[in-house]
């Protein structure tokens, strides 16, 4: 059997997976703080005790697009967006520190501060708990000040500061929940960075570029067709060979 058939087949299969990454980006075109994933194909030569004449295609997502999304004005005191680089530190579902740009915060029944996907926001050392208040203000550097319930404006109290970090992007990767974590297993928590700036009253939109994703979609679809064409051509070759053998 001609090996070309198998090589074309892996091309088509890997192409479908690339398509799935693009589809996921497009599905999240409206998701707050979403970061689009890249897809790339790489040649994987077949190694062994023979002449390395074949290379299979392999799809991978080598990185995430860390460009900031557009800022959408909401006017809500609890909506924050990070200006430029940086991340909000939260406690992930497994209890470890994770980083996110999802800034639609809300308050739990006991005053805990949560992100829009229900993860507790870390402050200076521990998850943030906010006492009862009349007015809340989240400052540029993540400092939370409140006017306690029933108190006058002169009683402003500084509660805590949202832990904002800015580790080098090459150390980060997306985990299976769409949060960001350090690539290196067991690496300690990142130290807060005083230079990260956030604005309240805004939300960061998804950084998916719809047009770019559509173009990738179409080009992947055409590539897929080429792979399928190759498969049918390999089939034709096999048929021709069979005919020749019959005549002989």
């Amino acid at each position: 059997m001609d090996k070309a058939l198998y090589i074309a087949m892996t091309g088509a299969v890997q192409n479908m997976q690339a398509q799935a990454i693009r589809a996921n980006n497009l599905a999240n075109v409206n998701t707050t703080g979403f970061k689009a994933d890249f897809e790339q194909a790489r040649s994987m030569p077949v190694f062994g005790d023979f002449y390395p004449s074949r290379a299979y295609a392999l799809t991978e997502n080598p990185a995430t697009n860390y460009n900031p999304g557009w800022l959408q004005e909401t006017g809500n005191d609890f909506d924050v967006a990070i200006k430029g680089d940086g991340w909000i530190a939260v406690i992930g579902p497994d209890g470890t520190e994770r980083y996110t740009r999802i800034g639609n915060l809300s308050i739990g029944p006991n005053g805990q501060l949560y992100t829009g996907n229900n993860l507790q926001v870390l402050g200076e050392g521990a998850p943030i708990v906010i006492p009862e208040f009349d007015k809340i203000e989240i400052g540029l550097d993540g400092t939370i000040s409140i006017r306690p319930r029933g108190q006058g404006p002169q009683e402003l109290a500084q509660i805590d500061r949202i832990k904002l970090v800015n580790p080098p992007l090459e150390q980060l990767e997306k985990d299976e929940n769409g949060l960001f974590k350090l690539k290196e297993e067991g690496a300690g928590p990142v130290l807060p960075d005083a230079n990260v700036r956030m604005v309240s009253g805004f939300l960061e939109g998804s950084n998916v570029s719809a047009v770019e994703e559509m173009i990738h979609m179409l080009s992947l679809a055409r590539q897929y067709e080429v792979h399928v064409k190759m498969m049918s051509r390999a089939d034709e070759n096999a048929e021709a060979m069979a005919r020749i053998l019959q005549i002989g």
Partner: protein
Amino acid sequence: MHPSLWISKTGMHAQDKQLSVVANNLANVATVGFKRDRAEFEDLFYQIQRQPGAQSSQDNQIPSGLQIGTGVRVVSTQKVFSTTGFQTTEQPLDAAINGRGFFQILLPDGTIAYTRNGQFHLNSDGDVVNGNGLPLEPGITVPRDTINFTIGEDGTVTVQTPGNAQPQQLGQITLVDFVNPGGLQAVGSNLFLATGASGDPVEGTPGQDGLGFLKQYTLESSNVSVVEEMVNMITTQRAYEMNSKVIATADQMLQFVNQNV
């Protein structure tokens, strides 16, 4: 089958829900005391198809893996408790809360519901009730021959009756507040119920403990911003279209393989 089909399906599904939220907000653009909803999107979990750092052969390592996201969902809808405006009316039984706080309404089963809608009426017994006939809590009964009905900023209700030079104090409207109003459960008819997420109601006198003052002859407008909802509607529609385009593309790919192999 093609994974993109299912991923884009979640996209269309989420946009569908978003449109319902927008439609409900727009439908309530003139509802007194209505608080708009906001749908919050979340990306679904990622499937690790190939672990980064795994061996591709005995001597070779894969430098980066393959994680495929599985789509999107609407994780929650959040009530936005901002206040946008007040309208002045000529009804003495109209009251608005200028600040935090909720009126309490006694439900037929004896539990209390909470509302920002201060459009009150009188029933045949003279009780102050809401538009659905449910009494305000604590209850206030207005005498039949009342000439003048006043709600003070602190919730004190006084009436003037014929033959009495002194106004007569009828009762006191109290308000309640919640730590997390966003966690209240909307049950329709402008009413909310307390939940575990909202925390317990804290009752108090209007104007004290951070509760808002009461303003008579005033109603609180809906906080739906028409322009914002329209823009939401447009982006929702486009996102929906793009997700359906992905489905069409994936379908064409499958069709192509069916026809050619």
